[in-house]
């Protein structure tokens, strides 16, 4: 089933012959401040194919948000490069949506829920009728069909987070970056939203970069899991998730292979927390 999906994707987005959509090479980010410099990201190199789902896990403070901000063109890297669809990223590129970790503060408090979702569509010059449909559908999909006229501050934290997700969904991006997007929702809603992201990914053929603290979630959603080391950050391991693309909350999570992967990633994250560095770097220094 994925073979057909992938075929349609390559025609809809510009890519190289290899099908590479995003390339991060030698990315380094040092935050400079009066109190001294913080090396948040030391050296990250990886690439994603068009339509791939990549999850990123790593200890708190590892620089996951920093990495996403660099990819989104919101933060200039200290050195290294991000290339998206064959163009070096210098500012936010077209066709990208981001769900920020600070979801609540990323909603415009002076706009209603529906207006928040609609604003990016207006700027994309989506026609009015189509805009209405997209707003209604995406709010429906996140279970907020009944509060389009409310303001974000009238909603609970979990509901605000779903508004931010609906805004990204309605935008129909080629590439979707999500930074711990389900942190504030309850377990049941979380499972529903995971399935929403999964179905969106298959339906629209988007490329997904998904940061999470939840190892199960990373394996359930991803085709690959990048495990980051602790700060200064490098890639500890790039774990391929060799599960079938057709996933389901019950069967996938009970799959013995799922359990194996989960143990593997869990051990890696534990090691990262203890300050373990990849062998290549250790021999270098």
């Amino acid at each position, binding site marked *: 089933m994925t073979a057909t999906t992938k075929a349609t994707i390559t025609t809809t987005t510009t890519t190289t012959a290899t099908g590479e959509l995003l390339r991060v090479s030698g990315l380094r980010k040092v935050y400079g401040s009066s109190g001294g410099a913080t090396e948040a990201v030391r050296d990250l190199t990886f690439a994603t194919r068009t339509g791939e789902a990549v999850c990123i896990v790593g200890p708190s403070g590892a620089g996951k948000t920093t990495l996403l901000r660099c990819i989104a063109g919101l933060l200039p890297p200290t050195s290294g490069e991000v290339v998206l669809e064959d163009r070096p990223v210098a500012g936010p590129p077209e066709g990208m949506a981001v769900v920020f970790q600070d979801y609540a503060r990323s909603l415009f408090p002076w706009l209603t829920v529906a207006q928040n979702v609609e604003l990016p569509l207006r700027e994309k010059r989506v026609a009015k009728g189509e805009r209405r449909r997209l707003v209604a559908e995406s709010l429906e999909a996140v279970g907020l069909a009944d509060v389009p006229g409310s303001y974000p*501050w009238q909603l609970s934290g979990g509901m605000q987070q779903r508004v931010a997700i609906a805004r990204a969904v309605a935008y129909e991006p080629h590439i979707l970056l999500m930074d711990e997007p389900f942190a504030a929702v309850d377990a049941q809603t979380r499972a529903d939203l995971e399935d929403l992201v999964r179905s969106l990914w298959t339906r629209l053929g988007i490329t997904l970069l998904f940061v999470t603290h939840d190892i199960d979630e990373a394996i359930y959603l991803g085709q690959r899991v990048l495990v980051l080391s602790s700060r200064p950050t490098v890639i500890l391991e790039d774990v391929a998730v060799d599960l079938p693309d057709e996933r389901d909350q019950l069967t996938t999570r009970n799959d013995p292979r799922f359990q194996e992967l989960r143990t593997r990633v869990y051990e890696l994250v534990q090691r990262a927390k203890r300050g373990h560095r990849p062998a290549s770097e250790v021999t270098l220094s």
Partner: protein
Amino acid sequence: MTSLTAPAAAPGAARETACEAEPPAARLARYGRRLAVLLGLPAVLAAVWWIVSERAENFFFPPLSDILSAFGPTWFDGRIAADLLPSLGRLAAGYLLAVALGVALGVLIGTWPSLRAFAEPVLEFFRAIPPPVMVPILMLFLGIDTLMKVVVIVSGAVWPVLLNTVEGVRGIDRPLRDTARVYRLRPLTRLRTVVLRGASPQIVTGARQALSIAIVLMVISEMFAANNGLGFSIVQFQRGFALPEMWTGIILLGLVGLALSLIFRAVEATVLAWYRGQRRAQRGGNR
């Protein structure tokens, strides 16, 4: 996804129904209390003034009854059109210009940190000059016409708007700026939907301070040199020892200030409804 709809009842809607459930009699009583609180002190003060001044022999403090009976003849025989309206016109022109100029410059300075570092010392200097001292100087350049008075009002009222706008623009939350950039909002949309709305609480604060400054400068500029206006009339009455008439001018001035501040509050209530709601929610009002 049925499970998602359960927690989705809007707390805002819940609040509104709570208000509607109030019986009409209770609501009337609530409005009555508010009116009593609002008018109580003015009524008491007026009564005290009335009683104390009634038997006073002091020429400079005529009885309130004399003042009130002089009010109609003084103002309603043409002075409204000849003096009050020109004053209000100059006030409106100067004030609106000051707000527009202050917001425009404030957005520019607030957006570019280098421009701010460059302009800040100059701004602080000009702000420190008491606006009335500008009147004689501006008279030299601009004469005593309407233009001079409007410029006086602008030169004093622009600063609070400008400085507050700069703060407001700088204070817009980073996630909001990031969102605007990621979704590639065009510059004009960014200005209207993100910058101006985001800075609106501070802009309104600045505009409120500017309003009282503008009223003061309207009167003062007319007292220096004019051939009509509210300030001009008050000075004329005072020089002609028409004390009750002079007092009516002062009362009228107070009423004008009161009316303008009520209009301002009504505008503020609509422009900043979201801000009040958000503040209330953050203080733990609705969850």
